[in-house]
């Protein structure tokens, strides 16, 4: 049990306080990003509302929250995939110090996607074209960034990479997706996504359709890719907090388009200071003997609709310890006990009535 692992200083980090920390080793910087959808009736829905974070070389940031919290919208925004009805409102996204916000989709596809930031999609099993062989789909990835590549070099490259991620390259590359088992398909998708050694990999619930044993194999593969320095840092999106405990080094809990708690994994999982992240933890189940007495409590209701501005705390409607003034006063992110929290009562004992860790 390695609960109290202290925050280790970065090896690459320069000794002493750097004058401009943003320049030093942040791979992805998101600065007060706001992103909205426009419905077919012309309503504006602010799906991501003021998110700020930065991702360092070698860091894995977990983003947790239930469905409809804006997790997937946030990463679309981070990747510059502003495809209508999704639009950029304000704020900046920088990858390797270069802003990607003003780019056209075509430019973005050519220069950023796949090379600097790549995505492992949700439901990866269904994201392969059933009528094409794996090698053709993988070759597309290389050809779209380097049109001059010839067939032989592509083949060698694919074979080398697929062998490296533990697949029987000759068999897998010449197969159609239906011929492969779920775990292998998932490996192929990861292999294709990371073909161009992207700086940041966005894993959007990569394991939600898999059983526990395959899930473990997939996470192991992602770790291997990081250890071999094929990918350098990762955004890991999930609604399973216990999984993040093992995967990520820091966690951001998202609710209604905003971060409500952002700190290290130990802080958020074991001593959360925000009612929503505590309730999220309290709704989880585990298979330890003796856990049967601990009753998991589901969070009732659904996240609020974001077409109109919400005056007070966004979680107040569902919060079990909501105070009378929660619905009227706007909550801001502030630092409590070493992490960022969006709750007025984060430093009081009221919070401890909710949920509780496993």
């Amino acid at each position, binding site marked *: 049990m390695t609960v109290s692992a202290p925050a280790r200083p*970065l090896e690459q980090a320069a000794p002493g306080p750097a004058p401009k*920390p943003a320049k030093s080793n942040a791979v992805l910087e998101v600065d007060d990003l706001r992103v909205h959808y426009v419905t077919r009736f012309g309503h504006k829905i602010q799906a991501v509302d003021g998110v700020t974070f930065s991702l360092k070389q070698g860091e894995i940031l977990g983003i947790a929250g239930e469905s409809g919290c804006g997790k997937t919208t946030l990463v679309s925004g981070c990747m510059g995939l502003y495809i209508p009805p999704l639009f950029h409102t304000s704020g900046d996204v920088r990858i390797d110090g270069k802003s990607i916000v003003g780019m056209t989709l075509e430019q973005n596809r050519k220069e950023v996607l796949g090379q600097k930031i790549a995505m492992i999609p949700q439901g990866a099993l269904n994201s392969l074209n059933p009528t094409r062989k794996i090698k053709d789909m993988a070759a597309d990835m290389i050809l779209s960034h380097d049109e001059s590549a010839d067939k032989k070099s592509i083949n060698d490259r694919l074979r080398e990479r697929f062998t490296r991620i533990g697949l029987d390259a000759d068999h897998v590359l010449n197969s159609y997706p239906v011929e492969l088992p779920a775990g292998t398909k998932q490996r192929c998708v990861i292999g294709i996504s990371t073909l161009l050694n992207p700086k940041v990999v966005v894993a959007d619930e990569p394991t939600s359709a898999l059983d*526990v044993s395959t899930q473990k194999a997939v996470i192991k593969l992602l770790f291997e890719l990081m250890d071999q320095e094929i990918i350098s840092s990762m955004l890991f999106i999930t609604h399973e907090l216990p999984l993040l405990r093992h995967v990520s080094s820091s966690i951001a809990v998202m609710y209604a388009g905003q971060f409500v708690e952002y700190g290290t994994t130990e802080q958020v999982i074991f001593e959360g200071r925000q009612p929503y992240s505590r309730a999220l933890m309290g709704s989880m189940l585990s298979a330890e003997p003796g856990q049967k007495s601990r009753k998991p409590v589901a969070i009732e209701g659904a996240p609020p609709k974001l077409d109109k501005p919400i005056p007070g705390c966004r979680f107040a409607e569902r919060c079990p310890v909501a105070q009378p003034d929660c619905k009227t006063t706007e909550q801001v992110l502030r630092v409590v006990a070493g992490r960022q929290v969006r709750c007025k009562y984060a430093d009081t004992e009221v919070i401890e009535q909710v949920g509780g860790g496993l």
Partner: protein
Amino acid sequence: MTETLKFQAKNISRVFGHGKKAVTAVDNVTFEIKDREIISLVGQSGCGKTVLAKMLLRLETPTSGELLFNGKPITATGDPRNHWRQVQAVFQDPFSCFNQFFTIRSQLKASFRLFETKPSPGEIEERVDQALLAVNIKPKEVEGKYPFELSGGQMQRMLLARIFILKPQVLIADEPTSMVDACSRASILDYLLKLKEELSMTIVFVTHDIGLAYYISDSLYIMHKGKIVDRGAPDDVIKHPTSDVTKQLLEDIPDVHRQWIARDTPPVHAAE
């Protein structure tokens, strides 16, 4: 003796294909399901748990062996509705269980067609309302709504509302929580427990997550490659697993209190 047994399987097997390409999905399995108990079938994908559940539902027939329901063998011929009045199912993907083109309420009302004698229209409305309230949804919330307008968790509760209407003796729940948000999972399990307590239902819970199975069930069956490799009360199975498969399944759960995957490189933390 046999009165308390709902299902009784004697050496049942299910083989798909024949000759060289034959695949044995369920391999010579023997088990009993008692009245008013929740049993869980746990195993990895492709271990045969869904095929076994389908055989209980009369959607598949065993190629060999004998399967008894309430002491009588399940026959492959005859009106299947006689069987489905007593054995019902909840599936993994609630959206594929409902027709996209009809309102949810009309589809819940249509489930009364399964009964031999249909109640009066007034009674149907009333019983649909009751069923919706049983799964904690106000009837007004879903009035005139279509399946795509609700979330996955809500739709899964609609499937459970159907069960509250039909009141079968046995419910086969095939991975009812895998499409549901992690934080609504607990509520789905609560409704299953409620079905057992209020309607004294027998529940067969099929899952790959041994943690869920441990929480809900009275007895556990661990399956691997078509065979039942471990069985017994949940506490016994979890504390003293006898087979390697069970040990592996327990180890693969990302539990917060122990190490899951050993890594050489230390994690990098965001400096505050």
